[in-house]
């Protein structure tokens, strides 16, 4: 019983911690791409990696101030979005999907390669770039605080507070943009590209703007993650994270302002709860070691996400908040 409560509390902390913020920001970006504009971006994690490494490289390799690093990260993500959009946005949706997933994997391989080691420090990655940010916290970052039965270090709490403010501002921006004429054009592009073109709108430009905007949200997510973990390692930015963010978005409801946020909180809670509880059951011997060992638990979360994603798409594509009519997308 105490195991169950412990697992619940750890799940709650995870659902409110920097990882949930990371996925929420990724998913807000994907929401702009996929939910509102109908773009299939499967390389969101690449933008996050550029954001995280933008700070890490600027601060610990080039010795620049932290906030310059933030600008570098955002600029890198914008440049990548333009490069990706240029060839693919005129083509059918699945071309963008293939190119973005290939870019994300290619960039990760490049960042972890031996030839990139002087800049990215290869597979070991970079660390010690977040002190000046943590030092801004108005409370003592060394002591631990107890909130709702969960224990947070001062630094974690600071990252989480700033991160949620960032998420709130992002949501506000998306909300404002999507009720503007610009947002209505995006939604129209999702529904019928040719009709929008017939009305004299430059569909290509609107798609490009949406791609860049979502990429910036992704870069912000990567920054929160890098600052939260205190390190930037290429292998943290695996492709599977993009799909976790998709799962969060679809769970919460695509094309809804708060869908990605609620989805991320719930997803992180479920994943962490399942993880902790399974480990507790294994160490107590409730689940025999032969069936599932504690090293397998880390993989179980991805299996669960895979099943969840499939079931959601098949039986409830609108997620918790969505509107079914808005998410019946077709690539052709």
């Amino acid at each position, binding site marked *: 019983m105490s195991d169950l409560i412990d697992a619940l509390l750890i799940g709650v902390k995870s659902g409110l911690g920097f990882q949930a913020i990371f996925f929420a920001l990724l998913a807000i970006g994907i929401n702009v791409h996929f939910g509102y504009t109908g773009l299939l971006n499967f390389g969101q994690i690449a933008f996050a990696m550029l954001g995280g490494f933008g700070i890490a490289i600027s601060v610990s390799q080039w010795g620049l101030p932290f906030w310059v690093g933030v600008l570098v990260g955002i600029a890198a993500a914008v440049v990548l979005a333009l490069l990706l959009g240029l060839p693919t946005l005129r083509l059918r949706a699945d071309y963008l999907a293939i190119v973005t997933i*290939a870019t994300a994997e290619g960039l990760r391989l490049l960042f972890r390669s031996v030839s990139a080691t002087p800049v990215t420090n290869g597979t070991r990655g970079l660390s010690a770039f977040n002190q000046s940010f943590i030092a801004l916290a108005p409370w003592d970052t060394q002591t631990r605080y107890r909130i709702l039965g969960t224990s947070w270090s001062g630094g974690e709490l600071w990252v989480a507070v700033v991160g949620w403010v960032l998420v709130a501002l992002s949501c506000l921006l998306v909300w404002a943009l999507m009720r503007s004429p610009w947002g209505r054009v995006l939604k129209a592009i999702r529904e019928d590209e040719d009709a929008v073109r017939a009305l004299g709108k430059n569909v290509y430009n609107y798609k490009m703007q949406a791609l860049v905007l979502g990429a910036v949200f992704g870069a912000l997510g990567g920054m929160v993650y890098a600052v939260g973990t205190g390190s930037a390692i290429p292998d943290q930015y695996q492709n599977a994270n993009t799909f976790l963010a998709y799962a969060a978005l679809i769970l919460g409801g695509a094309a809804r302002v708060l869908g990605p946020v609620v989805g991320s909180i719930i997803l992180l809670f479920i994943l962490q709860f399942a993880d902790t509880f399974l480990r507790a059951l294994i160490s107590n011997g409730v689940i025999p070691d032969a069936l599932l060992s504690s090293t397998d638990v880390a993989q179980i979360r991805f299996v669960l996400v895979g099943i969840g994603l499939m079931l959601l798409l098949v039986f409830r594509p609108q997620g918790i908040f969505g509107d079914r009519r808005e998410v019946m997308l077709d690539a052709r």
Partner: protein
Amino acid sequence: MLVGILAAVFAALLPAGIASAEGESVRGTLQTSRSGPIAGIEVTVTDSSGDEVDSVETDDDGRFDIPLPDGAGQYTVSIDAESLPDGVTLGPQGAERTVTVDTGRQQPVNFGLQDGSSGGGGSTIRAVQLLVDGLRFGLIIAVCAVGLSLIFGTTGLTNFAHGELVTIGAIVAWYVNVQGGVPLIAATLIAMVVGAGVGALNELALWRPLRRRGTGLVAALVVSIGLSLLLRYAIQIVYGGFSNPYAEYQSQRAVDYGVFTLTNRALATIVIAVVVLVLVALMLQRTKIGKAMRAVSDNRDLAASSGIDVNRVILVVWMMGGALAALGGVLLGLSDQVQWDMGFRLLLLMFAGVTLGGLGTAYGALVGSVIIGVFVQMSTLVIPDDTKYVGGLLLLIVILVIRPQGILGSRARIG
């Protein structure tokens, strides 16, 4: 250079597969491509104060694994250069390596032995060698990707779970071959049957019901990503994170063909892939079901109204794609060992090949995959080996700028 890389790869991969002893050790493999594994060479380890820790001879596979009872620290590993076989010489760094072993780490040691088979021949020879390697790799991609392209052509589905069909084939063959003791050729046939079964299961249990529900193509694409995640990590739980070789054909020497060298298994890979691909092409061109496949790819409604049973054709495409992917998986596992995510890593190159050739066309997949394979291997002439996949993916983006419909695709498809 090439040999050095080869030996380094083996030193890093093999111990992970064995994963036996706890505690610190130094280990590695002595071999070159021409001599094969070198047995019976004395390997000596001394600690930082110069005292000998242990001395062993390499086993029949050229391996050594020396436990370090004193734990982490700095050690010097040396080999007896006098007893190396004729033609094999030490690399530029000599017969001694000083390594720092961290706590709990099995430290790989690489001596970078040379046999004059490469490096000395100049860049033309190396280019020819890479061309042949690239051809082999490209043919493997082609065998895997034909199914992907045909599935896209007949159903419109961009199947992100196709890489897992490759992995399943390789792993089924590994279990049958290594655990079951069945010869690899028979094991491959079993794996292909299983692959066809998995393909049929895919179609019957998932995609046909989804089509009937009228699920959109984007939704179907995300479903295939979910399926890919589910299968990939389930495979990792069952199979583990190691890379393992098959039981046979592993310690082959490279045969010298003048301008390039090739192991017999690589040659067999090329021959098998070419024969299978020609058979597939003949089937598409001559047989009734092959013609039906092309008809459904071209225009599904027209095919249905001409009396073709579209669902049956799609089922056959799935079974064929599954069997071919399984074969491709075994061929890939033969050269790169069997790993839980081998298919997913190949998937991006398959997409690159299929897009290059023209999405949805069977012959386009063949041509595009071979070009991608050759390009990826040849690119190591100018870029480092560990970034070669990046080159392949860059090529994909360049193609989309210049000719988005691919080499053999038609303009109407890309919308």
